[in-house]
Each structure stands twice: as structure tokens, then as C-alpha cells.
């Protein structure tokens, strides 16, 4: 049986020095962010904040200098990620570009694409969305039907993408289209494209509101939309391989267990310095889980730094991490029983209100729990 390879990893001194610098920056930049705004973090949108972070050299940190990157380690990047998330900084403007789109272009893009996009991303000027899912294919990406049909100079696209977070705010969407129909081989014939969302005719973006009334999701409809040849990422037909690589980038980070940390901190404020027995037990249990998940997540970052592909380990962290961050509002409710609030009430009640409503998404985004456990089961040799 293949086993997991989680090894304890300590951060190097330069990463710890960077941590202090990041903390000072965040304290100065976000003094008035309320507790219930902080859990939004990688859903929170602020181009101004992203530009300031970029100016510090904290976007595209590990990328080559010739593309505007800073050639720093994955462990230093890890520190910036966990500090911004723990502080609840609004990072969604650059999050996808930094985590997925940039690394995807570095690996599969053309030199022209890298020159065009990467430096702009590292300056905090370009925002990306991800166009993978379709109305009839959520996690079953191989069943997508949106067609990109070869025409002179490029492709003509028809179809509909759904759940495209921030499409209405982003400059580009890295989108997966079917460029060939290969009978009985639905993983083949897919290709990825950099779609210019602001300047492409034939694209309609419609909002899909979430159950809390928020607008992150969109439906992106293509009707005879022309996408030029040089917008394709990688070879025609290589989309499946690229997408699975890209999802690997998406599953390894601290964003997969820190979504509810603000509620843990608000819980501490609520129960005070001398909590009762039940509250103390809950605080201790949450701390033990947080600490263990952090060590595991750090271990995955260290594997990336060592040039390994810890896909299995990343799936494990995402599975138990999202389960944990999803449990937090439930456990806090069970302990305190406060009514969750929307815009009134205390910061604790509003933080609870926000997280109770958003927790269902934690085990959906980036691959459902069932899909992840399928990946882990394959790793165990069960399928």
C-alpha cells in the first residue's frame, strides 16, 4: 500500500523574518476591518490592497525574476499566504492568478503568454477567473460540452460555464473547452484558453447569487465568441492533463483549513480568559486540530519546495481541513447557542452568521469532498 509522506518541517529563519514584515504590513493596512468582514478573505475583493501587496513583492513570489517574479521559496510564500488569511485580508483580486493561472502559464504557456501576463499579475494589475464547470458537469469535468470550433485565426466558442467566481470582476478566465470530439474518450479533445472577459464579443456574464445574497458566482455564456489562436494554453487537446495539474495547485494551501479561524478568535473573546469546562474543552480541541492541520499544510509546502508533486497529501489536507473549518460554526453554535446575525448584533454574532451560511461551500469549492476521497482511495490502491 502506498503511504503518505507527511514529514515535519520547520520554517527557515528568512521565512520567520518575512512573517514579522507581513504582520506589520497587515496591521497598518487593515486596522478597521471588522471581525465579520475577515472570514471573507479569499472571497474579499480589493484591487487596491492587491496592488499594495504586489508592491511588497508578495504576488508571484516563487516565479522567475524575468517574468516579474521574486524567486523566493514556497515556504516564504506559505508564510505570506497564512498570514494574509489569518488576518482576513481581502485577497481575491489576485488569489487565482497567484495560485493557479500564473503557475499554469509558467508550466504550459508560450513565451509570449508568459511575457504578456506574468509581469502584470505580479504588479497586481490582472485578475483571473476559472472557467471549468458547466451546468451539467460540476466535478465531472470530462463531460464538459462547451465547444471551441477551429476557424481561421482562432476558435469560435459556444456554450455555458457556471460557478465562475468573480467573472464579473476579472480580466481573464482560464477556460476549458472541447476542441475535438473523440468518441468514447471524453478526457481527450479538451483545451484550455485565456479568455479576455472584457474585450470578447459574444460573452454574457450573468450573476448567480448565493444563499446569503452575495454575488461571487456567475454564469458565463458564449455565443459565437471568437477566441484567437494565441489564447490557447498548451497544445490543442492537452486540456485534461493541464487541468488536473492546475487543481493540484488549488488543493495544497492554507486556505483549506483557515476559513473559520476568525470565529475561533471571536469565540476566545466571547468565553474570556477563564472559560467554563465545556468552553475550555472546545477551545483546546480546536487548537489541537488547527496546529496539526498547519503542520500538515506546511509539510505539503515543503514537498513543493523540494520539487515533489504532493497531490495525494494535498488532497488529504483539503479533505480533513475543509471538514474541520466546516465543523467550527457547528461546534460554536452547540457551545454558545447565540443567534447568528447578519448586520446587527455583536461582531461574534455576525461572524457566526457569516460562517454558518458560507460553511457549506467549504467542502465544495476546489473539488467536492467525495471527489477528494476518491483521489485518496485511488492513492490507497482501492481503485
Amino acid at each position, binding site marked *: *500500500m502506498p503511504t503518505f509522506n507527511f514529514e515535519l518541517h520547520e520554517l527557515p529563519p528568512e521565512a520567520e523574518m518575512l512573517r514579522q514584515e507581513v504582520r506589520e504590513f497587515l496591521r497598518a493596512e487593515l486596522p478597521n476591518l471588522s471581525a465579520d468582514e475577515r472570514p471573507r478573505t479569499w472571497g474579499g475583493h480589493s484591487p487596491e490592497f492587491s496592488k499594495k501587496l504586489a508592491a511588497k513583492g508578495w504576488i508571484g513570489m516563487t516565479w522567475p525574476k524575468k517574468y516579474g517574479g521574486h524567486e523566493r521559496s514556497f515556504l516564504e510564500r506559505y508564510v505570506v499566504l497564512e498570514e494574509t488569511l489569518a488576518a482576513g485580508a481581502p485577497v481575491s483580486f489576485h488569489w487565482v492568478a497567484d495560485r493557479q493561472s500564473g503557475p499554469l502559464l509558467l508550466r504550459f504557456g508560450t513565451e509570449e503568454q508568459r511575457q504578456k501576463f506574468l509581469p502584470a499579475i505580479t504588479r497586481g494589475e490582472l485578475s483571473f477567473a476559472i472557467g471549468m464547470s458547466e451546468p451539467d458537469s460540476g466535478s465531472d469535468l470530462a463531460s464538459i460540452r462547451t465547444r471551441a470550433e477551429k476557424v481561421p485565426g482562432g476558435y469560435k466558442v459556444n456554450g455555458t460555464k457556471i460557478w465562475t467566481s468573480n467573472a464579473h470582476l476579472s480580466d481573464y478566465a482560464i477556460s476549458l473547452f472541447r476542441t475535438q470530439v473523440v468518441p468514447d474518450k471524453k478526457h481527450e479533445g479538451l483545451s484550455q484558453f485565456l479568455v479576455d472577459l472584457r474585450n470578447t464579443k459574444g460573452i454574457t456574464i450573468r450573476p448567480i447569487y448565493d444563499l446569503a445574497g452575495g454575488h461571487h458566482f456567475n454564469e458565463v455564456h458564449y455565443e459565437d465568441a471568437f477566441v484567437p489562436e494565441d489564447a490557447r494554453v498548451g497544445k490543442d487537446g492537452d486540456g485534461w492533463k493541464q487541468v488536473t495539474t492546475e487543481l493540484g495547485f488549488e488543493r495544497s494551501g492554507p486556505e483549506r483549513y483557515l476559513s473559520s479561524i476568525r470565529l475561533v478568535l471571536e469565540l476566545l473573546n466571547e468565553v474570556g480568559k477563564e472559560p467554563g469546562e465545556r468552553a475550555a474543552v472546545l477551545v*483546546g480541541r480546536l487548537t489541537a486540530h488547527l496546529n496539526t492541520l498547519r503542520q500538515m499544510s506546511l509539510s505539503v509546502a515543503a514537498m513543493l519546495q523540494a520539487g515533489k508533486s504532493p497531490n495525494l497529501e494535498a488532497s488529504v489536507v483539503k479533505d480533513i481541513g475543509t471538514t474541520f473549518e466546516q465543523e467550527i460554526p457547528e461546534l460554536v453554535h452547540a457551545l454558545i447557542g447565540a443567534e447568528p446575525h447578519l448586520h446587527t448584533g455583536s461582531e461574534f454574532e455576525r461572524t457566526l452568521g457569516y460562517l454558518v451560511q458560507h460553511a457549506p461551500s467549504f467542502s465544495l469549492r476546489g473539488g467536492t469532498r467525495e471527489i477528494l476521497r476518491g483521489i485518496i*482511495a485511488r492513492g490507497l490502491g482501492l481503485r
Partner: protein
Amino acid sequence: MDDLSGLLADTCTRLFTDRVTPALIEATEKGKWPDDLWQAVEEGGLTLPQIPEQHGGAGGTWDHAQVVLSAAGRFAVPLPIAETMVGAWLLSSAGLDVPMGPITVAPTQPSDRLSISRNGGAWALSGTAARVPWGRSAKHVVVLAESGGKLMVARVAGGAAKAEPDTNLALEPRDTLTWSNAPVAAAGTSDSLQPDSLWLAGAMVRAAQMAGGLEFLLSQSVKYVSERKQFGKPLSTFQVIQQNLALLAGHTAAAGMAAQAAFHAMEKGDASFEIACAKIRVGEAAGLGAGIAHQAHGAIGFTYEHTLHFVTRRLWSWRAEFGAEGHWAERLGREVAARGAQALWTMLTSR
């Protein structure tokens, strides 16, 4: 993993695979002390990996001890290896030599108190300690005892106490030992000694044993569902079985990480935070893991004939020994709450 860790892991796997048979575990559970196995383990240098060479150990670190204990848990090795490591550590940290042979430690209950006093030119031990692991089998008992308000480490010979035998669920000896002015073979003290030093070390070694036990549950369950057929196909092809074992894999990985972190912190110095985290996290995984493994095995895993229970019975006992999850969670929770919300993230990232 360094070279010595790899070597220890290989040695343990080879030795335990050959020697720790179901028949041997059964015989031990019926009360027979497995002397040959102990000799082989001791000669293999597996009992004192983290003890300095000048005190009779192998000169390695707590990280190496964790490798051995995890393997011992994986194979349900019926020996007080963990207790020997803790006892030897107490002795060597008080500057005392570590003798050969199995060692156990006392007290293991927060309410028990032992005291030593001068008896002519020598020290003598008095008091009662309940649920002493392997109390009847150990050649030496290392105790943490009070002497005029001061904490001391003392070693007494096994057999110097009146013993009332009992066992835990895994039929490992958990005996009540009573000493009345028993002769002390060696005594000393150390500045680093705290009233909860033994309690912490005990929780830590149990965490490593359980993390190893979980690895066994995972590999054994994967093996079983791949071989066993129902409704015309292997159990492993059923999605719900795959999902459950993936969950077990996650908890096993978390348990391993939490145990590693505790041993590593112990090597560096103050490990009370990591030990509390480990006993909570691993203990929780142990309960969940035993449940999933038994469900995957169906009725056969519930029989004495099948070997699954050698590990699950140990997990059910070990998670409660040296403080269950609730005990450690309350203790840790009080510390975290006392520092306040501002300090939590700083504390997590400074470990």
C-alpha cells in the same frame, strides 16, 4: 527522515514481523512474559534510542524514539518499550545510570502520590500507585516521588512492592503497586523536573503508539476490502467503502503528524503544547479509526480469531491512559483562553 530513523524503522519492521505473532500476543495476554522477544528488542538497541550513551542508551533523539514506538504500536508489540523509554529518560535526566531490563513508571494517575525518605543511610519509598503498566513484569520501577516538598526520581526493584494485578482492555498488565519503606536503588533530581513531567511523557509515548496502531488499521483494512468479495465484486470497488477508508487515511496522517510534532518539540525542550495537541488529535483519530476499521471488516473483525482487535483494544485503552482527549483539551483550552484571542495565532506560528 534521517539515516538512523530509517535504520530503526527497518530493524523494527523486520524484528516485529518475524517475532510478534498472534500466538505470542495471545500468550502474553494470558499472562506469559515474552522474555525472548524482550531480549531481542533490547539487543537490537530499540529500548533506549534517545538516551545519551554515557547513561547506557543509543545516543539518538526523541525523533528516533518516535519511530520505534510507532512501529511497536503498528505491531501491537506486547512489551513495555514505551514505559522503558520514559523511565530511562527520567533516570538519565536526573543524572542516573539506566540499567538493562524492562522498566516501568509510576505514578500514572494524577491523584496518586509517592514519597521517599531517608531510612538510615539509604532512601526508602512509600505509597500506592494504581494502574502501573506492566507493574508485575518490569525489572525496575522508576518513580516520581516527593521528598520534603521536593521532586525526586527514584528507581526501585520490580517486586519490591505488593502487587494487585489488573489489566486494561488489551489485557496489558495495569497493576496497583504498594510500597512501604521499600529500598531505593538510586535517586536523584533535576532542575527540569516538573510535577507533570511523567504525565506529559506518558501522554506523548501513547500518542506515538496510537499513531502506529492507526497505520496498521489503515493497511489492514485496505488489504481486507481488496480481498473480500460481496455481491460478486471486491468490497474495495464500493464507493462508500472507498470513502470511509479515505477518511481513515486522513485521520491516520493527522495522527502521525501530531505525534511527530510532539516528539520533535520534546527534543527541542518544552513540548507541553505539542503533547496536549497530540494526545487530543491522536486520541480522537483512534476512536474514529477503530470504528471505521471494524465497519470495513464486518463481523469477522469482531471475532477473537481475527487479529484486528489486538490493535483496536489497545487503541481504546491507550487513548484513555495518561489523560483522555477531554482532559488534555480542557487543559490546553484553559492555557489558550488565558492568553487571549490576540495570542493564539502568534502561538501557533511560533511553534
